[in-house]
């Protein structure tokens, strides 16, 4: 499978990373190098093999669905690049 410039641009868009047009050919080449390496996996017979979900067989713990935390608005907002009036502020998303 070969990644062309258009696919590289699409992946960048999906990942929400701005890539300038002139950087796309080199990026596509890097993807192809890495995917070429990954394609060795096609040599392995995986018929009937379960994909791994958890490396250690364990049942996830259950807990009561109760409120254990809260009232930390100031702490939650403390590291925000733009916080106003108790909210995270972002550019306008609706007209």
């Amino acid at each position, binding site marked *: 499978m070969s*990644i062309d410039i258009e696919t*590289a641009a699409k*992946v*960048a*868009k*999906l*990942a*929400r*990373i*701005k*890539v300038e047009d002139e950087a796309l050919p080199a*990026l596509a080449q*890097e*993807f192809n*190098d*890495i*995917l070429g*390496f*990954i*394609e*060795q*996996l*096609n*040599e*392995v017979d*995986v018929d009937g*093999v*379960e*994909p*791994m*979900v*958890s*490396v*250690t067989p*364990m049942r*996830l*713990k259950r*807990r009561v669905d109760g409120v254990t935390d809260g009232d*930390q608005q100031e*702490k*939650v907002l*403390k*590291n*925000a*690049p*733009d916080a106003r009036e108790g909210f*995270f502020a*972002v*550019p*306008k*998303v609706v007209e």
Partner: protein
Amino acid sequence: MADLNNMKIAEARDALRKGDVTSLELTESCLTAIEGAGALNAFVHNTPDMARDQAKAADARIKAGDAPDMCGIPLGIKDLFCTKGVESQAASNILKGFKPEYESTITSKLFEAGSVMLGKLNMDEFAMGSSNETSAYGNAVNPWRRGNDDAQLTPGGSSGGSASAVAADLCLAATGTDTGGSIRQPAAFTGITGIKPTYGRCSRWGVVAFASSLDQAGPMTKDVRDAAIMLEAMCGHDPMDSTSADLAVPNFEAMLTGDIKGKTIGIPKEYHMDGIPDEIEKLWADGRQMLQDAGAKIVDISLPHTKYALPAYYVIAPAEASSNLARYDGVRYGHRATLEAGDGITEMYEKTRAEGFGHEVQRRVMIGTYVLSAGFYDAYYNRARKVRTLIKKDFEDVFAQGVDAILTPATPSSAFGLGEMKDADPVQMYLNDVFTVTVNLAGLPGIAVPAGLDKQGLPLGLQLIGRPWEEGDLLNTAYALEQSLGFVAKPSKWW
């Protein structure tokens, strides 16, 4: 007292209890060493005031009696750990200025045990790298050099700052994290000891996530005994991490008898790889002989899917990273790009992430996005997870045959020069983890111990891989190997 920073944890613990030294004296000695080691770029955020306060509290506690082993021990903390009120930016510009309002479980446990934090340590950005060259802080530098050649060498990665700091005696020990070899490879490159415990032993809560099914924290120390002491303080069940194992933590140090008679050590034939220097093969053979001389039974084993571990890793780790790093959106914390008139929220995300993430992180996030995207999920991601099942089964099969531990080289080379891999394609850099990455995929404990020097005068390490949850037994085998190897070399101070 001079050179207290050269002490090991066990020595310092005993000296503190005898009253021969105070934690404050140890801490001051480390702070002085750190001040003089700017050239190593190992410590990137220093916390001397906090360290002195913690040291004074530790001294009071030791005086009162009943202090834990780690009480008063000055440590370096990898920048991947969230530390309350102290910069924690995973060596990324996207988290520039981030000061968590909470403390990671691992650092909480260490602080509750009375340990002292000297500062935060350099690393590859988001732990993605094998040379510490992807760091937003610039390269960390290995204290070791090739004889009289003053070329700067990598301390390895991603825990490069941790390795450099411990090898140069800037702290008594450091925390590291290991997703594909990030504790063991830098330990091997700098002549120190590093253990990655079984997946689930150490809580991941408050450790900036890279690939959650692979990430584990562990200690980086000056010897195996110190690794046992510090690991015990880091382990334990944590309700804040759903994959944290609810198992008792043994006294690992008490298990260091050095007696490995009757143990079975496997030597996997697939780890004899093309292009591995003869010196490493020789060292590996020496290690085999030493374990045999110590009374272990040596068996040749096969781990047939070894060759597919790295390609599987480079699907699974980027896939998980692309998901984990989606949180860096310029909204809740960290960097936000300056926007132009008319830019909407999508432009904010795209510009923020382009400015905040370095090149390697961007590349891995995008590879992860690709392998998880519609139409490729089965071909790449699901296939890699199936191969991961087979890799784990390889290990289960040899353990079922009675193998207690597996001996391998730690790395395919000694430390290389900073910048030397600049023009290589990314896959060349990934090969650094060829011996270590299988262990993460199988969730097993693995330890790197320094084994010897190559002809350039650089340290080389051997790796032991253990059964799940049997870190104590693994540490004891490593201890026996360490005794036989007798590695005592230290880098000559040039910095």
